[in-house]
């Protein structure tokens, strides 16, 4: 049977109402400047002249029945690849507030985003709106009468944490006596800028973050460190005194490590630490992925690859034969490369098997920490199904690892770092302190710092989420100079400093009522409560209602 061509009935055809974001345009306010169409990162907008009929009743036979009027309207592209992503750039540039995207909860796009047989991919986040479990935790042990509350504004607070293998006290004293090697330990701020690669982030974003981190350390006295993702570090940074604020990551593609190894003899200082990535919360079991759009000349040079090719890292390290083989040897090798003066630790995805990894590390005297990245972690690029459904929430995973260490009396020896959705609804300090009191020595934050320091537009409603395509409307995750020059590194640096100053104040506001100021309250779970009995039982904290 022949289909009726005049009605769009193609299985994949979508109308604007089927899209996840629908553009609303008010002709009465539009100045026809065209900025919205120019700025749209996906070219979904088309300002166009349209014609409409103005019907009227005419009794005279010499006149036409209707007249026609032309007007300026918006056409929204319904092509899957050029759908509106809801970034709101159009609203940002519109001088008259004549245009903005609205979220459509009943879209049909989700069934059609597999054109060409490509499984859907995106950057960004898991897209699970609403309060997280961490958001629901409150701090309940308040000092009032049995012990006086502290003054967050007046008392001195010690809020730093340790990154690196800490010896048992007996062993520390023994090694002091015999002059043996004592593992390197860094004293750092417990909120860490999580691994985002030079490749995922634009040069301006990276520079802004680094400037901000340096300012926090050198001017504000907040020892913030930031982690690179896989993909190395610009040579000038490797040879600069700022390297001490950077955790270098090595992952299964080993991208960027030629440059790093070559730079070692010229390094002015040691890096803060080395992170060996075995897994990532957003896409467990998947390697890193830098899509071809973002492999610019600079990135290609840093990574030692041709321009414009997809750069997927393998899911596992080539050396992986067993956990002992991979983890132990890699940790030792990396320790040796930096003369046993730099903490080396693995990063894994949140998983039911995290405890097994942890117990291996306990027996490895060179392991400096364990970083666990939960299912709510972000990424520059991943398949939707990985991001949405694969992984383990961080809270219970971290908690069971911490309690396992407690049972062995090793909780001070291997610091646990947690990540994955920390601050995803903006409650960065509350989320981070909850994880710290559940047993984390510190937390990594990626999405939050992009939102806070650079104005990332992403949210949990699948807004924007095109970090993978190199078209970031804010210039945060693009390698195209025309786009990333929108981002002023100095302003990013300023926001980084403001963010950490605010976190520091909020930490005091959490710690002071708990009567804590002398040390970070790691594992102080008696201060925590949650209004969910099952979660309370699982996390071994107090149920409050």
């Amino acid at each position: 049977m022949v289909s009726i061509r005049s009605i769009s009935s193609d299985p994949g055809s979508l109308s604007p109402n089927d899209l996840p974001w629908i553009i609303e345009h008010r002709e009465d306010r539009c100045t026809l400047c065209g900025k919205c169409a120019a700025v749209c990162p996906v070219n979904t907008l088309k300002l166009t002249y349209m014609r409409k009929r103005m019907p009227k009743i005419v009794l005279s036979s010499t006149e036409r029945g209707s007249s026609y009027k032309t007007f300026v309207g918006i056409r929204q592209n319904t092509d899957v690849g050029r759908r509106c992503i809801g970034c709101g750039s159009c609203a940002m540039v519109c001088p008259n507030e004549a245009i903005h995207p609205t979220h459509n909860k009943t879209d049909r796009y989700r069934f059609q985003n597999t054109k060409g047989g490509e499984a859907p991919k995106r950057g960004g986040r898991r897209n699970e709106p609403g309060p997280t479990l961490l958001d629901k935790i409150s701090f309940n042990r308040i000092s009032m009468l049995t012990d006086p509350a502290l003054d967050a504004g007046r008392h001195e607070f010690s809020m730093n944490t340790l990154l690196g293998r800490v010896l048992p006290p007996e062993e520390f004293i023994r090694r002091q006596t015999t002059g043996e090697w004592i593992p390197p330990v860094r004293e750092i701020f417990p909120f860490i800028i999580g691994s985002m690669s030079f490749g995922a982030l634009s040069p301006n974003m990276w520079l802004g973050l680094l400037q901000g981190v340096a300012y926090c350390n050198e001017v504000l006295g907040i020892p913030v460190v930031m982690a690179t993702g896989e993909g190395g570090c610009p040579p000038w940074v490797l040879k600069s005194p700022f390297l001490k604020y950077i955790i270098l990551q090595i992952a299964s593609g080993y991208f960027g490590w030629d440059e790093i190894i070559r730079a070692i003899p010229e390094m002015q200082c040691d890096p803060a630490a080395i992170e060996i990535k075995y897994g990532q919360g957003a896409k467990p079991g998947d390697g890193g992925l830098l899509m071809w759009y973002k492999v610019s000349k600079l990135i290609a040079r840093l990574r030692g690859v041709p321009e414009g090719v997809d750069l997927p890292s393998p899911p596992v390290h080539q050396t992986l034969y067993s956990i002992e083989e991979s983890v132990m040897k890699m940790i030792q090798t990396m320790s040796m490369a930096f003369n046993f003066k730099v903490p080396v630790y693995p990063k894994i995805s949140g998983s039911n098997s995290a405890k097994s990894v942890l117990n291996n590390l306990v027996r490895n005297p060179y392991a400096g920490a364990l970083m666990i990245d939960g299912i709510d972690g972000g990424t520059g690029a991943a398949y939707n199904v990985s991001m949405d459904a694969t992984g383990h929430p961080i809270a219970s995973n971290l908690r069971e690892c911490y309690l396992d260490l407690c049972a062995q009396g090793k909780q001070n020896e291997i610091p646990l770092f947690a990540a994955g959705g920390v601050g995803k609804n903006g409650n960065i300090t509350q989320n981070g302190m909850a994880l710290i009191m559940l047993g984390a020595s510190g937390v990594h934050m990626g999405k939050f710092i992009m939102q806070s320091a650079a104005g990332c537009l992403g949210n949990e409603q699948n807004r924007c989420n095109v970090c993978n395509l190199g078209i970031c409307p804010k210039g945060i995750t693009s390698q195209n100079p025309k786009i990333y020059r929108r981002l002023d590194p100095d302003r990013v640096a300023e926001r980084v400093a403001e963010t950490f100053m605010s976190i520091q104040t909020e930490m005091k506001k959490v710690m002071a009522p708990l009567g804590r100021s002398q040390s970070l309250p790691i594992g102080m779970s008696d201060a925590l409560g949650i209004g969910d009995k099952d979660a309370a039982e699982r996390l071994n904290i107090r149920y409050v209602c």
Partner: protein
Amino acid sequence: MCRLAMKTANKPFSPFSVLTAMEAMQEGYDGSGLGLLLRGLEFTDYKYNQEDPVLSGIAHTEAALSRLHAIMNERGFVLKYDHEFDTDMSKIEAKDRHKYVLRVFKKPEAWNSLTKEQTEHEMMLTRLALRADGEANNGDLTAFSLWPDVAMIKEVGWPLGVGEALGLESGRIKSRVCMAQGRQNTNWGINLYACHPFFIEGIATMTNGENTAFLPIKDWLSGKGFPGYIGYQSDSEVFAHILHYVTNQLKLPLQAYKHVITPLKNSELSAHPQGDFLRGLRDVCRRLIIDGPNAVIGTLADETTILVMDAKKMRPATVGGKPGEWAIASEMCGVDAMIPDRDRSKDFQPMREHTIIIPPDRQEIEIWSQFDQFPLTQAA
């Protein structure tokens, strides 16, 4: 709030004199109980050999007392002296006190081949066995201490009233050191084990104030797997265990205690002659950092006394006295009551960096500051 009084003197004195000091400080506490620790014992009815272990506790039933007897016999202890208190049970609130145990034993012969450390460990294990036996029988047996030259009493009630109920005013027991604390742990529910002072292998501490960092410290100590690091019915028990850990397990000088519980800041450590070692010590003992507000008074097996404050010094304590006789109390009036004829101008209230040490000869007090050179072991 807890009220603390400690007196140490070359000449043994009656614990009742310390109880009167508690009475002087009565405004500050709820009078819910008494904890007493005596060292350097002297009995009027018995010539005590200072090497013999003394068991302190309470048998709440006849059956518990006979089990206690059996356990001690089984381990080879030989009873040398059983102190009978002149008790007036009508003055005791609790109704299930069958017998206050204060018994001197001869050590088991089998221990003759053990080292001093092994012997001390065995004494602790015996105390823990008695405690476990009591706990397995609805708490009918409470064991506070088993140690040479140490006696302990813990009871619910007004301190002076408890002292009178046990006939302490008669002076049949005297000691060179007396630690007294005037409160049961009413914050958490009354449990005799929760009452200060806390004792472990010759070391005892008592504290005023809440320990806000209790849980992480407890978790860490519990994880050490040392049999004596149990209990924690009170958040203050960890202070005794940390002191034990620092001096007995790490074998560091007494001054290290202050560096462990309230380490110096980075800026202070960088100016300290042993800053590197102390920074390392701070890192490895990070879970033992206290947050106060606390004043900790401790005594050691050799009758040394220490007093330290938390880093914010939010609890008071005063030391005063004269050569041969010193007192520490949470209130000045407590010191006045214990040693009225001293030069008050030489009383001292330690600041956050101080450790007060009264050595066993009691000639003068040592005011040691954390900023001073640390008496280094070979290790540092």
